[in-house]
């Protein structure tokens, strides 16, 4: 069974003028179908305003679809009595690290979710310890979040979600406000959760470099899915991506240009090593 299933999901909101009269309807999510298997690492790409964050908020019942259905682990998100179960199944990490840390001490913040779930005290401590260790923040457990770097704060946020024992974690642009080092930290933590803990990860981002490790990539624009496939398939369509205002990783772009200028390079190069290997192959082949 799929952990997440979206069937023809539409989300519309009303635009209002200053007096509150409806002036129009904006369709933020437009007939999106999406299914995620347990243990997958999924990436959703799109530039600002493509509807990817709105879509993410449907995955743990913060928003409800105007049309269509969202199933999380077999539960329809509009069933009100299942709300807490749904939110526990798919944890959510948001963009701004400062605006999602509730407590003034790292370990207390990680304990916030389990406290809400009514987990017994002793078990909370076990969960906090294992979650902080999983993201490599255990040694910072007594620190104030204000003294951490952005990347560290985001890892604490991930630990906070992890402590609720979710089956799936949705990361809604977790790296948008971080520097490159912080971005790498967070992506590494997310990949570790997927590899080691076998948690389904849905990463929403507009940085192409972050999605090359994903199992499956969706590209969104104007509320609907425009492209999907493995990172290799998606990145081989460089022209289509630039039409959607997305820049492909530099190596991929270079490989694409070389290919267009006549070199027999295979399409969908993702890493520097691949390009090097490909160039060596061509050179020795001649």
């Amino acid at each position, binding site marked *: 069974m799929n952990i997440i299933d979206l069937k023809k999901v539409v989300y519309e909101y009303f635009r209002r003028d200053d007096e509150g009269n409806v002036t129009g309807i904006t369709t933020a999510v437009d007939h999106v179908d999406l299914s995620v298997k347990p243990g997958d690492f999924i990436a959703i790409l799109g530039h600002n305003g493509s509807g990817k964050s709105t879509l993410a908020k449907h995955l743990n019942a913060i928003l409800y679809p105007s049309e269509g259905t969202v199933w999380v682990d077999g539960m329809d998100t509009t069933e009100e009595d299942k709300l807490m179960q749904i*939110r526990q199944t798919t944890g959510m990490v*948001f963009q*701004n690290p400062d605006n999602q840390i*509730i407590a*003034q*001490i790292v370990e207390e913040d990680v304990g916030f*979710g389990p*406290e809400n779930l009514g987990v017994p005290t002793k078990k909370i401590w076990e969960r906090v310890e294992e979650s902080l260790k999983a993201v490599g923040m255990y040694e910072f457990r007594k620190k*104030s979040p204000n003294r951490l770097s952005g990347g560290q704060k985001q890892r604490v946020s991930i630990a906070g*979600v992890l402590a609720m024992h979710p089956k799936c974690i949705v990361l809604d642009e977790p790296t948008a406000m971080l520097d490159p080092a912080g971005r790498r930290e967070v992506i590494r933590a997310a990949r570790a959760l997927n590899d080691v803990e076998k948690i389904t990860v849905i990463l929403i981002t507009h940085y192409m470099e972050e999605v090359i490790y994903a199992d499956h990539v969706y590209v969104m624009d104007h509320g609907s899915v425009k492209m999907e496939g493995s990172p290799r398939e998606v990145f081989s369509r460089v022209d289509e991506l630039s039409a959607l205002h997305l820049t492909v990783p530099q190596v991929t772009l270079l490989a694409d240009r070389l290919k267009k200028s006549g070199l027999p390079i295979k399409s969908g190069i993702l890493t520097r090593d691949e390009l090097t290997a490909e160039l060596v192959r061509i050179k020795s082949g001649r």
Partner: protein
Amino acid sequence: MIREITIGQYYQTDSVLHRLDPRVKLIFVILYIVSIFLYRKPLPFLLAALFLALCVGLSKVPFSYIVRGLKAVVVLMLFTAVFNLFLTPGETLVAWGGLKITKEGALIAAFMAARLVLLIISSSLMTLTTTPTQLTDAMEKLLWPLQKIHLPVHEVAMMMSIALRFIPILLEETDKIMKAQMARGADFESGNLLRRLKAMVPILVPLFISAFRRANDLAMAMEARCYQGGEGRTKMKPLRYKGADTVAYLILMVYLAAVIAVGKLT
């Protein structure tokens, strides 16, 4: 400069005071503050000051760090001192033009200043040694009976702890906005009071907007983590009295008795 305010901040270290039950510290501070307002005599004050000095020593918080917290209230202290000094009727010490300093005024001014200093040091000592979460837990637990008459005790406690968590973040933001405005030629330091107040508007407007945005984000993050009020919640760090807490209560009793004894006798 704005970041130097230490009131309401937690100072991370490990000391006897840090390990005490927050309820003890809360009751301690309340009764301590009562004790410095009981008498207007030098000896009880001396006792109170000595006692506080002992507590500061036990807390392992650097004294300079605590004093920095005082800076923020120097203006208030000067204000009360000046008013007391000039406006209290009584035996004239110095007369200068229409103004006169009376003996009573000087005494009251000195006592008020001393009281304010002790009050601020004692309460900041509590917040320096207690995390906001512990503090609000303590309030929640102490005020729990009020839940019976439908007062939202848990909600208020949660709001307070969130407010405390966001103080440093909003201060930093204020600093950033001020610098941004200054870089574009804004002037916050010259002109009369009205002009300076007017200059604050371009700081407050963006600050408020950002605070609302943060509140919105935070509410969503809390909901996403299954927060639904106090019901059915368990505690990661439930409050339980230990041996040291009983000892602390005893010390508090002895201190209060001593203050009252000294106050009555002198």
